[in-house]
């Protein structure tokens, strides 16, 4: 029983990471109706920056953490302005190719700078945070960090004028322009936030999977599955989907299909949702009267 409970709780911890990355995907999807395939590599790149700040520059973990989040934010904004903006009105396929190019470039540039050798990335959480046999300190810490990120994001989008403007720009760009919102910049900010959330996910997952340029590949797959389960246009759905996928993956891996086939869970979920219920569990059913 203890082992089972441990599997569930550990699933919630990795689920939090999937939820964060899924949320980043949803943020970009909501304003562009495209899934950013490079989201994982952007997170991985940011995590390497954190590693460099800690190990090469000798910074304390949390200083490096916040600096990395800030870096990722700026990086996201710049990527949108410089790389995505020029193909804004191009066909979907063209943009997808740009996303994939970004993925490959980030992956190889990171490998070129930091080599492909796996690096350890220490967990910042103190031993006392753990819950005995049920949860490791890092698992508890990951859940806490995820929750803080979620609360901050919710407060930002719900209660600040800028958050409102970003929601308006994503929903109805034409009307947003007519009230004076600079829609292009809102998009860029959205990329910034998505990249920052991704960076947090990267830093949380690195102590578990070790740091290497391909570390986000499978995480991104789980995040896709999470976003799809929840409904790709629904941030709450993405969060719920993240936790659900995390727990499912762990339990199926431990008791049903074995550890080696775990990644198949993500693929089965993706294919399953797309064929059975493409809008996901909480995909928006919009009520409009005319």
């Amino acid at each position, binding site marked *: 029983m203890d082992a089972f409970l441990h599997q569930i709780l550990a699933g919630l911890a990795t689920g939090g990471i999937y939820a964060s990355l899924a949320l980043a995907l949803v943020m970009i999807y909501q304003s562009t109706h495209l899934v950013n395939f490079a989201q994982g590599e952007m997170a991985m790149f940011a995590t390497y920056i954190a590693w460099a700040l800690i190990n090469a520059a000798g910074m304390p973990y949390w200083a490096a953490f916040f600096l990395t989040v800030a870096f990722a934010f700026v990086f996201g904004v710049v990527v949108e302005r410089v790389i995505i903006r020029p193909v804004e009105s191009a066909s979907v396929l063209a943009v997808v190719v740009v996303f994939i190019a970004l993925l490959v470039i980030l992956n190889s540039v990171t490998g070129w700078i930091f080599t492909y050798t796996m690096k350890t990335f220490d967990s910042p959480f103190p031993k006392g945070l753990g819950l005995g046999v049920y949860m490791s300190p890092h698992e508890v810490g990951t859940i806490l960090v995820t929750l803080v990120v979620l609360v901050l994001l919710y407060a930002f989008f719900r209660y600040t004028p800028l958050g*409102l403007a970003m929601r308006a720009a994503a929903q109805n760009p034409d009307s947003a322009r007519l009230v004076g919102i600079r829609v292009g910049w809102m998009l860029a900010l959205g990329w910034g936030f998505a990249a920052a959330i991704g960076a947090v996910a990267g830093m949380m997952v690195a102590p578990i999977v070790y740091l290497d340029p391909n570390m986000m590949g499978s995480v991104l797959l789980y995040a896709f599955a999470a976003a799809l389960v929840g409904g790709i246009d629904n941030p709450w759905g993405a969060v719920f989907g993240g936790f659900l996928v995390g727990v499912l993956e762990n339990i199926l891996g431990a008791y049903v299909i074995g550890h080696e086939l775990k990644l198949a869970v993500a693929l089965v979920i993706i294919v399953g949702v797309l064929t059975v219920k493409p809008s996901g569990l909480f995909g928006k059913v919009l009520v409009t009267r005319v």
Partner: protein
Amino acid sequence: MPLLAAKDLHASYALTRVLHGISFSMEPGTITTLLGANGAGKTTTLRALCGMVKTQGEVTFEGRRIDGRATEDIVRLGIAHVPDGRGTFVNLTTEENLRLGAYARKDKENVEGDLERVFGYFPRLKERRAQQAGTLSGGEQQMLAVSRALMLRPKLMLLDEPSFGLAPLIVKELFGILRSVNEKERVSMLVVEQNAAMALDLAEHAYLIETGRVVLSGTADEIKKNDSVRRSYLGY
């Protein structure tokens, strides 16, 4: 100096040219209407004024050239556009829609007061304050669109078919409120309408547009008396 003037304004969507050199002007504090049949280019004219379509020609607002500027910059000069189809942010609440109307304003401290002012004109919106705007009725959404524009404290409002799809009684109410906004707050209005009779009662000046050109202009009374306008647009 006219508040707004367009000179030889051309506009096109992709390869189709819609405006073929429209010229008109309006004085501060007045209501002017653009009349015309479906497809005459009325909506495009309003969109051209706010930089939402590619244009050639000259547009001046308070003596300054505004053609070629970005929509969001034109809005900041005090031009509020109530678009065709109302442009409601359907997933946001009524109040959020209204607050967005004041987004471009610098005097944020007056926004609360203006919310009450707008609720004074449209008490129904106050009841619907926390409701998702997409669930409002057509008339309520039109009121919301006008209110959102008022939240900018505009100098000029561009109204695209405010009567569209509304019951006659609601149209009457809405036009009454537009008139009192114009009288009390000196907000100038450029109204595009298919309902020529209503528009000519509201406006002081009118321009008749046919296939992208101004074919007739004058005071509302002159236009009302014009025989061909009477037959084609007023229907008696």
